[in-house]
């Protein structure tokens, strides 16, 4: 049950577009900075397969310039 957090950097002028795109993905939680062009992205997936699928989805987002992982945790299945 991986939980990961990232700093997501949008392309110039594409912050709102990126927020919208990420918000549409079920496993993603987005927290945009109020005064900088960067967002916190927290992903929560059930297993590695789902995570790999999510990664593929993220790679297709045009407004996303860079995704930098900050932390990654695994939790027991039952929690």
């Amino acid at each position, binding site marked *: 049950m991986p939980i990961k957090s990232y700093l997501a950097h949008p392309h110039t002028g594409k912050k709102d577009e990126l927020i919208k795109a990420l918000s549409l993905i079920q496993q993603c939680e987005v927290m945009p*900075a*109020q005064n900088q062009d960067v967002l916190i992205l*927290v992903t929560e997936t059930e297993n590695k397969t789902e995570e790999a699928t999510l990664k593929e989805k993220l790679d297709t987002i045009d407004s996303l310039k860079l995704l930098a992982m900050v932390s990654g*945790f695994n*939790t027991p299945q039952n*929690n």
Partner: protein
Amino acid sequence: MYTSITNRREFIKKMAVLSAMTAAATMFPGILFAEEQEKGIPNSANLDWKKAPCRFCGVGCGVLVGTENGKAIAVKGDPKSPVNKGLCCVKGYHSIMALYGKDRLTKPLVKKNGQYVETSMKEALDLVASKMQDTIKNHGKDAVSIYGSGQWTIPDGYAASKLFKGCIGTNNVEANARLCMASAVTGFLTSFGIDEPMGCYEDIDYADVFFLWGNNMAEMHPVLFSRLLDQRLKRGVKIIDFATRTTRTSKAADSSILFQPQTDLAVANAICYEIINNGWVNKSFVDKHCNFNKGLTNMGYGLEDNYKFKDKPEKINFEAYKKFLEDYTPEKVSKISGVSVKDIKYMAALYGDPNKKVMSLWCMGMNQHSRGTWINNLVYNIHLLTGKISTPGNSPFSLTGQPSACGTVREVGTLTHKLPHGVVMNKKHREFAAKIWDVPVENIDPKPTYHTVEMFRALDRGDIRFMWIQVTNPMVTMPKLKRYRDGAKKEGRFIVVSDIYPTPTTDIADVILPSAMWIEREGLFGNSERRTQHFDQMVDPPGEAMSDTWQLVEVAKRMGYEKQFYYKEETHIEEIYTEYRKHHDNKKHNMAPLEVLKSQPGAMWPYVDGKSTQWRFNAKYDPACSNGEDFHFYGKPDGKAIIWQRPYEPAAEEPDEEYPYWLNTGRVVEHWHTGSMTRRIPVLHKAMPHAYVELHPNDAKRLQIKTGDKVKLTTRRGEIILPASIDQRGVPAPMQVFVPFFDENLLINDITLDSFCPISKEPDYKKCAVKVEKA
């Protein structure tokens, strides 16, 4: 931020968010996630929200703390607070986690045969009172002392001052704010005759240019810095970072100008030279509202025990001052400061431009300075010469590092020479305090005793035998620490430490008293902009932990001062604050009533006719102005501020052949001062787990040192080995190194120097000479 640990998965998710926020905060100075913070807060109908000022710096951000089932589980910025307008920094987000470290002190501990033994609070307080009485009986009243803090609440400091100065009759009362803002106090007193900034944070919304004098605001005052950045986005204001080291603030500023340590004195004079030379003086303002003075020079550095200094101000005229400044032409100053002539002229032109409002901000860089009072005076000179003062946006503004350095230490007066109103040397002030305290006036000693460094020297010498330390960690923060640690451990000394966690200071204690922290008790703090803020008790303290105020009251009663400490446990904060207000019952300093402070996010003194005063000394805003003019600097008898002739003088110890580098110390964004609380917050500790030494890349290359390599620093006081940090967060100038002081396992203060400003007695933590080697 939020800490409800209802299940492991939720907790981990929150840790992931906090890790990202911390990383973002270190990459983007002043970054904010305020709107999203609300969404992450537990959505529980039972959550009870109450306001409090944050306790993790002097800015005084308003926070709302959510409690459920007796536990603080959420915190968010208070949108009603004019200080932070709903924003919070990383320390604020995590603040409530500091309440719940695994090793909280919950029972009093008494040292017996070298071992700490648990005892009841009653027995511990009995012991403290009897030891203090025995010490007074055997060694005199000046053998007992209390050392407090800018993290003391106002009632803590008031109870301490009343007990020691009013009842016991010793002026052995000091606080750690001596180490961080005493030079700001003496700067205000010498220039204006009255303490604390004339302006307020709202100046940020009006200023066109911001000068940061040795002030890494992005890390130390992130919420205020975000307000500067916000103004740049909205209005295109300029931010000038004038410092000795490249920091995150420098990177976010419009201009980063580096100067050689200590030469800010010369540069400030050069700016004044340029202002006069270019005809930018606001002549009518200076003629009406300013005098010119000079003081003694070559004062020394306080390195020897029992060092004494008293300045002798002498009036001079404008022409004499102008002549003095001829030694500070940009060309001459450039040679000693390393600042280009062009940059000096650029800074002077910004200050001198009559169409630009200018705010100067500073904190430890100017205050922890062996000529700290002088450099404070010199920045005021710039603002006074140009008349850019006491109006919205024109504001010389000294920031503080602790939540109540102003409210408790400066306003209550928990320094050896101070009373809540005035000073112990003044007979009328003593009479006034004695009447309110209900003590014979003879009780209050007219002579100040020891400032902080000298107090610890007196403990080492044996002149002081008993010391009670509350809410502070001097065994990490004292300069030339080894001497004072060894002194505190000597036979015949009795040390009481009130704290919430074990620290290197509790290690030297004979009695450890567990304290209630922040919202575990009711209290009040006073921030940098003269704003007093109240907070309720929201949760119970753990075990037998007790507020520092009530510890003092209990000991006072045991010592026979029941009459003066008449307060009831349920209402003592209200009773103490109401009594304290009587000391400031005048138009220049009136404090808001408690019911006002309970109903809103603070009020700024002087609070007159139901209104806070935002800009002092300006007749338009300040009801205490009474001279019929636009401005009235009423702290001085003739109502005029003073422009001081203060020269450049070198630091106490400068690099030489044997110790060729400058050593500078300071803080990091993740940790609150000595880290005793923030190092117990996992996400902050993980983000910044240990101290390090920053080197300039060229020095590192020459010494073949890479990031992570061990580096040996040696000064005349000793040596320490630290991991290197090259081109990471901060970059010192060539031949300078920087070490943060938060890490109790790597005590940089073992090798710093205890020189201090002879006027303020504040140590210079920013400058001593050091040898740097690959270990």
